[in-house]
Structures are given as structure tokens and as C-alpha cells.
């Protein structure tokens, strides 16, 4: 069976699954009548919102949802295998012209036709992506069957999850930017749906809106990028774009040129989706969603779409060093910023969320220095251990009946051993202890940051510092959660229980992955042989010229690399042991330190006040504060919910609607009023006295004569 020509089926299975769910799910999984969640002032909150109902056919839901993903996983494997057997490592299936636009003039005056096909491209890069998406996706689906068991809207959940997988696969399989944008927006949508899954919670829906609209900002950049690309190259098909860029008619840009423009606009999109510096604020809030969602969308797959996009455009970024530098800088900055914030968070999921942001920063750092395969490699490994960590935390929360605050955990090690051991592996992996996945990818990034032509020791140092912080906060998490004495409040304590197999099995598998995944890209230094650096070779065709650059990095001698490697490992170990010391041995120290450097602590604790700044600018926090200051400045503005427009926007809209009613419409009203007014004099002439009328006749005569006299 030829999987390569059937790659277009891969996304369709989950789509089919989603359609089935949303169509007949209600019959398979009857909802409790008390699904209607009521505001307290209307009625007591319906506990049934979480009440489990006996639903015999529910297993069908699992069969369909999980089966769909399983199918596409199998197809992906088949396709990937067959691709690996081919010499030509690019396989494109174009089904029809989707967006069949009309001719237009390119910037260089040539005619081109604006069109985008409904086509799929399987090359090493997308092969890796689909494997990650379907593989991790499959595990998380299985996990969810256990985790979501007691949730109402079970079928809805799996419908959304399948929908997400569909869009994600569209994203990674598309053969042109516009179709990629379809998946791009689609994952945004399904992330919105899943974040606000508990849509009776205002916070959830707020977070959903925030995620979608912040992404929209990035997407605007993406769209403009595509338009500019069309204007320059006349096409959006990856193969054509790359061919055109590598055809040599565009030389690498010294400063910021048009190509840099394209690159940066695309990067804006990527930053939105992958939660990079200016636009990362939505991700922590996104933790409002169920934990599996956080694992799948906000750790493993969707947030890496930006990385994928930039990697996909490698040909473009290679031509625009300055743009690449921006990417690297933003990446590095995000990495360390997020890491610092993660140091002091107490919500277990938030820690992981910021760690995700930080790891994504790593990836962009790698992309920025031109080490595309490394970025993808880190994406790959990160998918395993971050999913693992999220699911683990989910398992913890599950065990504690919804508790998320680490200050009320501790000593869980023996209560939920499997969860503990899997999370232990995950933490080791992310901390970068040699032998586990995290080490290889992260260390490779550091090395590239140091050695590659666009790299610099500064970038390397930031990366290193981040690595230390990562190790620290991860083990802070571990210690606060699993070790030391329990701080769990008693009645929860009573029924802590290990999660069912449906949850633990995926955990274990992911743990296995976190251990092994790294060995696909061991440092050349170790001379372990071809098969242990197969990842790079596998991706070579995707980043043709990137490989060339990577090859000439042997310039630095091996000793340097050994030293750096040593340093990073050392830093990791220091971080771990500090965390252990602070949070298991001398648990009072952190408090003291926090007390000593109170301002810094607060700064970190409040996430550098970035959200507040954004609130000040965009979200209507300022309207609240300002509302108090200016007296209730404007009810409507204040009431207007956290997300969406925001204060400045809201204010301008206020102004514009005022303008609309009083100026634009006012002119109309005024003129009509004028006419009406004018009607009265016209009537008042009509006094009803016949002689007045006669007088008017005479006046008329007078006027006529007057006209001729003066003429």
C-alpha cells in the first residue's frame, strides 16, 4: 500500500472523528440534565457540571476518537518509512487548486497568478512533525479517556481534540503557506475551544478569547508576510519559494531588506503562535483548559508550530541574517525571562507553562543561529518530556482532586509512585542530565549558539543561565510536589489515589520516549556512529544549505566543545542540588531569600508585570484603575470584559461612536431639522388676510420691475 500518495488521508481521519463526535456524540454520551451551569445569583451552582453519569455507549466515543488518531498515526509511520526509502526526499500530493486567484503584477512587474493548491508535502521535516503530532496525540488521547472520565461534555472534548489533530496535521502537511495558514488558524480555533472547554467559567472563556485574539495579532503579520511574499516571488508553494530563493537571484541581505520584511512578518506570526516575547502572555492563561489539552496543544504540538514555520522558511531566513539575529535575540530573551518567572510560581501548571515558553525560546534561539535541525530536534525531544511533565502534573492534580497549588502538596512520592517516577524522568530530561533526551538537544543548541557563524558567546551564556534556572525550577517543582513532608490538607489526603492505567500507561511510554529520543542526535563529538546522529542526516534534505553550514562548524576544536558541555552539565547539577537543598532540606531559606530581595521576588512573582503592562495598554485593567481615578470613567468600558479589545481600542471606539451619533449622524439630523424649521416661515407668510396676499402680488410686481430697472 502506497502511503505516500495517501498522505492527504492522514488529516482526514481525525476530521472524520471530530465530525462524528459533534454530530452523534450527544447520543453516545448523554449529558446530565444539570449541565446547565447557573450563576450563583440565579440558582445554586449545578454540581452536576462535574457529576459522572452512567453512559453505556461511552466506549464508542473512545473507540472513534482514539481510533481516528491511531489510524493517522499508522499512516504517518507508513508514509515516513516509505519516504525514508526514497532517494528524492520530497513528496508532494496536489489534489486541486484551492485558492484559484487571478493574475496580478509582482513587484518586479512580471505577471503572476495568485493561487494556492490544496496540496500536501511530505519531506523529512513534516515527517518528523506528523510523527510527533500523531504519536504524542495518540498517547494523550488515551490518557484523556481516563482523565476526562468524570467530566460532562466528554464527547465534546474528544471532538475538539480530534479537530485539533486534524488542523495540526493540515498545518504540518500543507505544501504552501496559505494552506498552512488554514491549519494555523484552525489550531488557534481548536485551542480556543479547548481552553474555554469549561465555558461556564468566565476565566476559561476569557483565557480562550485572549489566546485567540493575541494569536490574531500575530496572524495579521503572517498574512502580510504572505502578501509580501506573493508580491516578491509570485507564489506561496514551499517548493517554488525555496527554489526561487535558492535560484541565486536573491543574494543574502546585509541589512533589513524586503526579504527581511517577509521573514520578520512571518516571525511575528510564529511569535504569536509559539508564545515568544511580546506575545507570550496568552500561554500561561491557557492553562485554564483541561490538563491533557495543555499537554497536547500548549506543550507538545501547537506551540511548536511557530518553530515549524520558521524551520520551513529556512531558505528565507538564511538569506536574511539580520532577521535571523532578531529571531535569536527574541528567543534567548524569552527563554531567560520565562525561566526567571517560572522560578517563583506556585501553580504547578503555570510553572510548566513558563518552562514551555522558555524551551520554545531555546528553539527560536537555535533557529536564529541557523541551526534548524537542532531546533527541530529540541522540538522533538521537548515534545516527549514536556508532554510527560504536563500529563504527570495532570495525574497529580487528578490524584489531589483538582488541587494545583504546590504549596499544598509534598510527600506524594510514595502515594503515586508511577506518576512520581515518570515525572522524575521528565525533570531529569529537561534539566539536561546527560543520557536523557533534554541533554542532547539542549546541549546541541548551546553549542550551536556558541559556535555557529550567527552565534555568539553572549547567546551561549544566556542559554547556559536559562539551563541552570530550568534545572532549578523543575526540581523546585519536584521537591515541593513529591518530597519533603506533606502539606496536603487532610480531607484531600484521605483519598489520594494513583491514576488508572489509561493514564499511567501513556505516562510510562512518554517516559521511555524522554529517555530514548535524544539518542537520535548525539553530539558528533562522541563518535557513536551514523545511527546515533541520524536525526541531523534525516533533516539534511529539508535544510539543504543549513547542513552545509553545520558541517563547517568543526572549525572549533573538540576541547572547547567538551568544556562547554561540562559547564552546562555542571550548571544543571548545581541547579538541581540547590533546589533540593532549598526545598527539601532547609525549606525556610527560600522565604528568607524572598524576604531579603523582596522587590526582585515580587517582580518575578508578578511575571515582570508584563501582563499588567499589557493590561495598562490593551486590556482594560487601566480602565478599572483609571476608572477609579477618573471616577467611573465609563461603565461600558469597564464592564467590557478582560479580553478582546482593550482599553485604548475601547476608548477609541467610544470616541468613534460618539462621533458617529453626534457628528456624522448629527449633520444629517441637523440638515433635516433645518428644513423643518425653514418650513414655518414659509407657512407664516400665509396670514390668512387676503390683502396681505395682494400685497405680496404687488411686491412681486415691484421685484419684477426692479429687476428690469436695474438691468
Amino acid at each position, binding site marked *: 500500500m502506497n502511503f505516500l500518495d495517501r498522505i492527504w488521508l492522514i488529516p482526514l481521519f481525525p476530521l472524520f472523528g471530530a465530525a462524528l463526535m459533534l454530530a452523534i456524540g450527544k447520543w453516545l454520551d448523554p449529558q446530565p440534565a444539570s449541565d446547565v451551569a447557573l450563576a450563583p445569583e440565579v440558582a445554586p451552582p449545578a454540581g452536576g457540571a462535574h457529576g459522572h453519569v452512567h453512559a453505556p455507549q461511552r466506549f464508542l466515543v473512545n473507540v472513534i476518537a482514539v481510533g481516528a488518531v491511531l489510524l493517522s498515526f499508522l499512516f504517518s509511520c507508513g508514509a515516513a518509512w516509505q519516504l525514508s526509502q526514497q532517494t528524492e526526499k520530497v513528496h508532494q500530493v496536489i489534489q486541486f487548486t484551492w485558492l484559484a486567484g487571478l493574475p496580478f503584477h509582482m513587484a518586479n512587474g512580471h505577471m503572476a497568478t495568485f493561487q494556492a493548491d490544496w496540496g500536501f508535502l511530505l519531506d523529512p521535516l513534516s515527517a518528523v512533525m506528523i510523527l510527533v503530532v500523531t504519536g504524542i496525540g495518540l498517547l494523550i488521547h488515551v490518557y484523556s479517556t481516563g482523565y476526562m472520565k468524570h467530566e460532562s461534555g466528554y464527547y465534546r472534548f474528544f471532538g475538539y481534540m480530534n479537530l485539533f489533530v486534524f488542523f495540526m496535521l493540515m498545518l504540518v502537511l500543507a505544501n504552501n503557506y496559505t494552506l498552512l495558514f488554514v491549519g494555523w488558524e484552525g489550531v488557534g480555533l481548536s485551542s480556543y475551544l479547548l481552553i474555554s472547554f469549561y465555558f461556564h467559567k468566565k476565566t476559561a472563556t476569557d483565557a480562550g478569547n485572549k489566546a485567540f485574539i493575541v494569536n490574531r495579532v500575530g496572524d495579521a503579520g503572517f498574512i502580510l508576510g504572505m502578501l509580501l511574499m506573493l508580491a516578491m516571488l509570485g507564489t506561496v508553494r514551499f517548493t517554488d519559494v525555496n527554489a526561487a530563493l535558492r535560484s541565486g537571484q536573491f543574494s543574502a541581505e546585509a541589512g533589513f531588506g524586503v526579504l527581511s520584511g517577509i521573514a520578520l512578518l512571518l516571525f511575528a506570526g510564529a511569535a504569536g503562535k509559539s508564545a515568544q516575547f511580546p506575545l507570550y502572555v496568552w500561554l500561561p492563561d491557557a492553562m485554564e483548559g483541561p490538563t491533557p489539552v495543555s499537554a497536547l496543544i500548549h506543550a507538545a504540538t501547537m506551540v511548536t508550530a511557530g518553530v515549524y514555520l520558521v524551520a520551513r522558511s529556512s531558505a528565507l531566513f538564511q538569506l536574511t541574517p539580520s532577521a535571523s539575529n532578531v529571531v535569536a535575540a527574541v528567543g534567548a530573551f524569552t527563554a531567560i525571562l520565562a525561566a526567571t518567572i517560572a522560578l517563583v510560581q506556585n501553580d504547578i501548571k503555570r510553572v510548566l507553562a513558563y518552562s514551555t515558553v522558555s524551551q520554545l525560546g531555546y528553539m527560536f534561539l537555535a533557529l536564529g543561529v541557523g541551526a534548524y535541525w537542532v531546533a527541530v530536534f529540541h522540538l522533538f525531544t521537548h515534545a516527549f518530556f514536556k508532554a510527560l511533565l504536563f500529563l504527570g502534573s495532570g495525574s497529580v492534580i487528578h490524584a489531589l482532586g483538582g488541587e494545583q497549588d504546590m504549596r499544598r502538596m509534598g510527600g506524594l512520592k510514595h502515594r503515586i509512585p508511577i506518576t512520581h517516577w515518570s515525572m522524575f524522568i521528565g525533570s531529569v530530561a529537561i534539566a539536561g542530565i546527560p543520557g536523557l533526551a533534554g541533554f542532547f538537544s539542549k546541549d546541541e543548541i548551546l553549542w550551536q549558539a556558541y559556535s555557529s557563524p550567527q552565534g555568539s558567546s553572549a547567546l551561549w551564556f544566556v542559554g547556559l543561565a536559562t539551563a541552570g534556572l530550568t534545572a532549578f525550577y523543575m526540581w523546585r517543582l519536584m521537591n515541593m510536589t513529591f518530597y519533603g513532608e506533606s502539606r496536603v490538607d487532610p480531607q484531600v489526603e484521605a483519598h489520594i489515589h494513583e491514576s488508572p492505567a489509561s493514564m499511567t500507561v501513556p505516562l510510562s511510554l512518554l517516559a521511555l520516549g524522554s529517555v530514548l529520543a535524544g539518542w537520535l542526535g548525539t553530539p558528533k563529538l562522541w563518535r557513536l556512529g551514523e545511527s546515533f546522529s541520524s536525526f541531523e542526516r534525516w533533516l539534511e534534505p529539508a535544510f539543504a544549505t543549513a547542513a552545509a553550514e553545520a558541517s563547517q562548524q568543526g572549525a572549533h576544536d573538540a576541547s572547547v566543545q567538551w568544556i562547554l558541555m561540562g559547564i552546562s552539565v555542571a550548571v544543571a547539577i548545581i541547579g538541581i542540588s540547590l533546589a533540593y537543598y532549598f526545598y527539601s532540606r532547609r525549606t525556610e531559606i527560600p522565604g528568607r531569600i524572598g524576604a531579603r530581595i523582596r522587590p526582585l521576588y515580587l517582580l518575578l512573582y508578578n511575571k515582570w508585570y508584563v501582563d499588567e503592562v499589557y493590561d495598562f495598554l490593551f486590556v482594560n485593567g487601566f480602565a478599572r484603575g483609571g476608572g477609579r481615578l477618573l471616577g467611573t470613567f465609563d461603565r461600558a468600558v469597564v464592564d467590557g470584559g478582560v479580553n478582546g479589545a482593550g482599553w485604548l481600542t475601547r476608548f477609541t471606539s467610544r470616541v468613534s461612536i460618539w462621533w458617529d451619533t453626534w457628528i456624522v449622524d448629527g449633520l444629517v439630523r441637523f440638515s433635516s431639522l433645518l428644513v423643518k424649521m425653514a418650513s414655518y416661515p414659509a407657512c407664516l407668510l400665509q396670514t390668512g388676510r387676503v390683502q396681505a396676499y395682494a400685497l405680496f402680488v404687488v411686491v412681486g410686481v415691484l421685484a*419684477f420691475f426692479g429687476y428690469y430697472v436695474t438691468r
Partner: protein
Amino acid sequence: MSQWYTSTDHFTIIPAIMLALFGCAVLLFDFLVFPSPRQRKWLLIFVALGEGFTGLALYRQQAFLAAAGLTELVGFHGSVTVDGFGIFFNWIFVVAALIVAVVSYRYLEIAGEHHGEYYGLILLAQSGMYFLATGTDLVTLFIGLELMALCFYVMVGFLRGDKRSNEAALKYLLLGAFSSGFLAYGFSVMYGIAGSTRLSDVAAAIAARPAWDPVVFLALVTTSVGLLFKISAAPFHMWAPDAYEGAPTTVTAYLSVASKAASIAFLLRIFLGPLASVRVAWEPLIAAVALATLTIGNLAAISQTNIKRLLAYSSISHAGYMLLGLVAGNDTGIAGIAVYVLVYTFMNLGAFLVVVALRRANIIGEDIEDFAGLAHKSPAYATLMVIFLLSLAGIPPTAGFLGKYYIFLALIQTQHYFLAVVATLYVAVAIYYYFKIVRSMFIQEAKETAPLASSFGLRLALGVSGVLTLVIGIYPEPFLRMAVTSLVR
């Protein structure tokens, strides 16, 4: 026949003879045959016969002209000239008179003033109009005008028991006589200029005059005052609202349509005849008057609550549009006036007929409030009213649009862009006050539920004018051809 009264002379005035004949017949039979008011509606037979014969005569004249390939037929040494122009307008008089006569009896019975003289006066007035449309001699025109005017004075005051009717009649008479005094004065000066009363001679004499001639201006001004007064153009319009409001509604209809049409014909005879050569002198003046008329008519109409008064002002504004046609003055403009008069006849008559239907035993039914909820009570009437109002406003596909269309086109052809823009904008203003009526008919709730005073004649007349208003709007070709061809002079 004698040399004083040749067969040609006879042929040129047969319609008038018919009208006069049956007019007198009505007056006689009224008290000889139909002593009791109940039977008086049979007098309609005479009216119908009279109009029938008139129509026949008109048709024969038309046919004769066509057959002989003549453009005009002169009678009585040029006192009267039968041409397409005259015949066209006379058709309009015939239609108007018939419709008005047919709807009148019920109204007059309700008003308690149902007398045979009424029909006699209608016919005699029409005979006066005949000479307004066909006369080509100052004297003929003057007498014709007076004949028509006198009849109208009486008809306006026909509800003798009603103060408002008396008042209207008196005002109309005083002002009418006053203005016709000016008219006569102007005519006298014209005579002085030409030494003859034939329009052709006068035209020749005036054309021979120097460009800037005070005497001509004297004649021009005084004459045009009289003429503009008759078509109720500002600032000589003031009689119209009062007369229209006070008069019996049927008479108002007749007055606003027939009398106005006749006066327009008269006006055209003078301005395109004797005064044609001094167009430069009067064109700006007429333009100003037209603008003033449009403005006054439309603005004053906005704040009216009495429907007859509102329609009076609207008919003033229509006079303004017609004058714009004269201002443009090219063929399109003149044809436009004819078309305008044609469509105006039906739509305005129709509108007034609906008002007639509202006059009930103890309800005057002239207030906009009285229209409230008409759509429930009698949807047919309401719908017809809407059609008439739309047509008055000039919204396609009703007849009214064509009139405006010609006027605007003429203005654009002659590069009177400013006038054109203003005229078009007043359409929007007009919609505003016409739709006050529509609003009250369709949107407000009825206050009293007394059924409309409809009669067979009324329904017939309404149907005819409604259908024609739509037909002319949707398939105007034959009517346009009639109007346009009749005006090539």
C-alpha cells in the same frame, strides 16, 4: 353659412359649442326635469354626453389635421387656432371634468349642496378652458380666462353654508380679479405695441422692438403677473392654499388639475408666442420664480396637517417644476411640461379623490389624522393613495417620474445644473411630507371606523386614475408620443 361664420370657424369651436350647449342644457333640465335632489345625479348623463361629444369633436379635429397634414387650423380671423397643443390640453380637460363630475354627486349630497348648476358650471368652465388652450387672440384668451375663472369663483364658494367655502371663494375672487386686472393691463400695453390683438401680430411687433424696451417690460411684467398668479407660482401663490382648503374637495381637484393645466397652456401660448423673442429678458426671472415656487411649496407643505392644504402646497411645487421646463425652454422642456401636465392630472386627481372618499356624513376628513389606519379599513384606497403619492413625489415606476425625468433632462441639456440639483433634492423633501400621509395610513391605528363614502363613480374614477398612473409609469410610450408630437409647434 355667412361670411362672418364660415364652416371652418364652426369646425374650430365645435367642442366649445358642445360644452356650452350641454352646459345650458344642464341648467335648464336641472329645474325643469329633476326638481328633487335625489334625481339630480341623472344630470351626469348630460355631462357624460357633453364630454362625449366634445371628445368626438376633438377627435375629429385631430383626425382632420392629420388627414390634411396641417399643423394648425385657424378660425375667426385668427381668434382661435386648433393645433396639437390645444387638442392635447383639451383632452386633459375632458378627462379631468369627467372624473370630477362623476365623483361629485355623493360628495355634494353629503355636503347638502347638490345642485344642477354645479355640473353646468363644470361644463362652462371647461368651455372657457377650451379657449385658453386654443385661443390665439388677446381678447379671446382674456374672455376665456374670465369665463373659467368666474365659474371657479362660484364653484369654490359652492358650499354656501360653509364659512370656509365662502371665504375661499371671496379670497379667490378678489385676488383673481386683482391679478386679471394686471393681466388686462399688460394686454392693453401689448395691444398698444402691436396695434392688434392677434398673438402673431403682437409677436411680430415685439420681435421688431429694440432689445431693451421699457414698454415691452411693462407689458411683460404685468402680463406675467397675471399668468403666474393663475398657475399659483410664488410669490403669487398665496390664494391657492386657502382656495384649495376652503373649496369643496371635488372642486379643489378640478381647480388643481384643469384650471392649472389651462393656465399652463395659456402661459405657454403667451411666453412661447408674443414673448418668445424676449426670452433673454424673462428667462432668469422665471428661473427665480420657479426656484421660489419649489422652495415655498415644498417647505410649507412639510408642516401642514390639513391634507388639502398639503396637496395645495405640493401642487404649487409642481407648478415650480413645470416652470423649470419653461426655463429650459428647449423641445425637451416643453414636451416635459406637457408630459408633466398629463401625469399630474391623473396622480393629483387620484390623490384628491381619496380625500373626497374620506368626507363622510359628520366627518370632514381633511386632516392627516383622518387617514390614520386607512390601510386596515380599506386597503385598496390606501394602496391607491400610496401610488398617487409616490407618483407625486416622482418615484419610478409611477407616472410622476416621467414628468420629472423630462424636466431634469431638459435642465441638463441646457446646462442649468444648479437648478437641476436643487430640483432633484426637493424630491427628497417632497417624499418626507407625502410619506407623512403614508405613515398615518399604514402605521398609525384608526380612530373612527365609519366606512368611507365611496360610490360607484368614485370607485370607477379612482380605478381609472390609479391604473393610468401605473400604466403611464410602466409603459409610457404611447402617452409620451402623444404629448411630444402634440407640442411640436
